């Protein structure tokens, strides 16, 4: 086995290449090759780009090289997007050329059958005595938003940010990037890792552990290649950076014939659930929940259990409290000190519920939110707050948003999540909140779920 540390060190050639070559560059409309060419050209100010194509002298007016070995300069990153049958040969050329790292976009390998598996094995053998890291095959590619690198055929470049996304599926990357295009959070590094012939998810996690640009790691996978290796890495890394996972495949085919109760009950899905619990991974079920969770984690700190709810509508508060129970969020009672503090507030005039959820009543103006929020956040066993707002005719959403932001700065370790329920009437305030990194969810259930994923039960 090759040295993991040295391989991880070489990942810099994949994420931060100074020179990139694409083998299979083409100008054929609607092709993968052209998609990658265009994505690479978008970063041509940051790095030098070489096109390799033995059949064309020029692509988009740029000179091509018939072979990677004909390029005189050092090549940090090679992207291979030619039919599977030709890949082994160019991998050999890449090794001869001593390139920094390789991404194989091409499909039709192990996922397609025995013939593909054989070529995969030959590629792996060829790379065995090198320390060239390989991503893929059968993948969308790699993106580093912070240096404008899209070594992929993804349709857009995401906003810069602190979220890394590792995905077994390329389509999930496309879907997530497009959906997040208008959001106020962004991405650091994105890897569609495909068949994991060389770099497996646990090694990518190891790389991201020390990546300064990454604060949160989101993942999508159907299966893990190296179970114990994954558990070991995930356990270690989730202590530093939250890891979120969507695991596809809940089927339990093959369990029926089990000889023991344990065998019959332990479906693949149950085992993964146990793995997530043991490793501190946050499990989500849908793309919506993934987005809600990465937004909360990107914007706000994590906290221990114990949440205060502040609302101007009893219904919203009760609904949220129900979900808190479902998601095992504790709602501490308001302490005598907090109640005393609330009583002294002129703004409240004694008009409020004396418990958690704190109901400021329907006609609450911004000053009531201010008094309520400050008192609740001051209570030591309340570790984070959900601020809810229904729109009455006198409600002041923008004023409320400003107050929330101002008070949040006095409690930097206590996350605030908002549920300004509504649409058109609150959109301005919601924009203001989210531009300032206070997450808002229009639906109480989504708000509470996001909050539950902020709570770090392990610590």
């Amino acid at each position, binding site marked *: 086995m090759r040295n993991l540390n040295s391989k991880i060190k070489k990942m810099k050639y994949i994420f931060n290449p100074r020179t990139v070559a694409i083998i299979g560059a083409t100008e054929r409309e609607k092709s993968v090759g052209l998609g990658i060419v265009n994505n690479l050209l978008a970063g041509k100010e940051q790095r030098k780009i070489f096109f390799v194509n033995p059949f064309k002298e020029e692509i988009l007016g740029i000179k091509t090289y018939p072979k990677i070995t004909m390029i005189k300069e050092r090549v940090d990153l090679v992207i291979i997007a030619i039919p599977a049958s030709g890949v082994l040969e160019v991998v050999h050329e890449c090794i001869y050329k001593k390139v920094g790292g390789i991404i194989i976009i091409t499909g039709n390998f192990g996922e397609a059958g025995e013939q593909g598996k054989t070529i995969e094995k030959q590629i792996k053998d060829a790379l065995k005595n090198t320390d060239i890291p390989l991503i893929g095959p059968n993948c969308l590619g790699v993106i580093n938003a912070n240096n404008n690198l899209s070594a992929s055929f993804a349709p857009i470049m995401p906003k810069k940010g602190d979220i890394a996304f590792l995905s077994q599926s390329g389509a999930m990357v496309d879907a997530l990037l497009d959906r997040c295009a208008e959001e106020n959070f962004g991405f650091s590094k994105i890897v569609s890792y495909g068949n994991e012939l060389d770099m497996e998810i646990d090694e990518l996690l190891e790389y991201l552990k020390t990546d300064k640009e990454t604060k949160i790691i989101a993942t999508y996978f159907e299966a893990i290649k190296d*179970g114990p290796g994954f558990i070991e890495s995930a356990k270690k890394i989730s202590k530093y950076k939250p890891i979120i996972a969507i695991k596809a495949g809940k089927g339990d085919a093959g369990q029926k014939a089990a*000889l*023991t109760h344990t065998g019959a*009950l*332990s479906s693949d899905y149950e085992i993964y659930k*146990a793995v997530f619990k*043991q490793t501190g991974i946050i499990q989500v079920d849908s793309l919506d929940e993934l987005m809600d969770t990465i937004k909360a984690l990107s914007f706000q700190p994590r906290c221990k259990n114990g949440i205060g709810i502040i609302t101007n509508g009893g219904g919203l508060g009760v609904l949220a409290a129900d979900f808190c129970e479902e998601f095992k969020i504790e709602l501490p009672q308001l302490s005598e000190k907090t109640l005393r503090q609330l009583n002294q507030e002129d703004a409240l005039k004694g008009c409020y519920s004396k418990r958690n959820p704190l109901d400021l009543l329907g006609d609450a103006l911004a000053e009531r939110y201010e008094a309520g929020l400050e008192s609740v956040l001051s209570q030591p066993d309340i570790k984070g707050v959900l601020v809810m707002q229904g729109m009455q005719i006198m409600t002041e959403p923008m004023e409320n948003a400003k107050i929330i932001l101002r008070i949040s700065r006095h409690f930097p370790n206590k996350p605030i999540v908002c549920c300004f329920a509504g649409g058109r009437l609150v959109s301005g305030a919601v924009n203001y909140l989210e531009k300032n990194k206070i997450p808002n969810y229009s639906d109480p259930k989504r708000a509470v779920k996001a909050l539950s994923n902020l709570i770090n039960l392990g610590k």
Partner: protein
Amino acid sequence: MEILNFEETKNLLLKYKIPFCKTEIFNSKAKASEFAKKIGFPVVIKVHAPNIFHKSEVGGVKVGIKNLEEFYVAWDEMKKRTRLEKIEGILVQETVFGSELTIGMKRDSQFGPVLMFGLGGIFIEVLKDVAFRVAPFDKKQALEMILEIKGHKLLQGYRGREIVNLNKLAEIIVNLSKLSMAEKKIMSIDLNPVMANKKSILVADFRLIV
């Protein structure tokens, strides 16, 4: 796949400190009845065979044997019912009372040994109220696992039920995780039921599959 023989099963349970109720295996009725007298009635008898996975389906379990007379009858009947099976012998066990629990292990091709914990009977069969952990894990994880099942309050004295020593239970689960890590030929395990009461937690039925 077959069920591990009694001798090796017993040695593994002893080695990894997984307590089980007084049990011995016999082929001689006279010796078996001596043992029954020694451990005291009522006793249980069960067939033990490499290929009988569901003992009760072949009439291979008889509980509540109250005296020597009943013992002889039960022994003869069981011998007759299982005469066509290749059996290792008949187990004679003391009767223990308490809450029924289940602890099990499956060796997963991806993650290795996965342990399961649940209550017994309908709680596991109908309600599927169970928790899983991938081995190896520590006592803290085992306690979490116990408290994760919906029925955990039934182990803590709910409505006059016996209080189970959760600390001891967690230790047994951890010991089974150790066994599973070290004894690689064991493919799966069902300890079902495990009888838990105020004083003890004892495995009453075991099936180690190799």
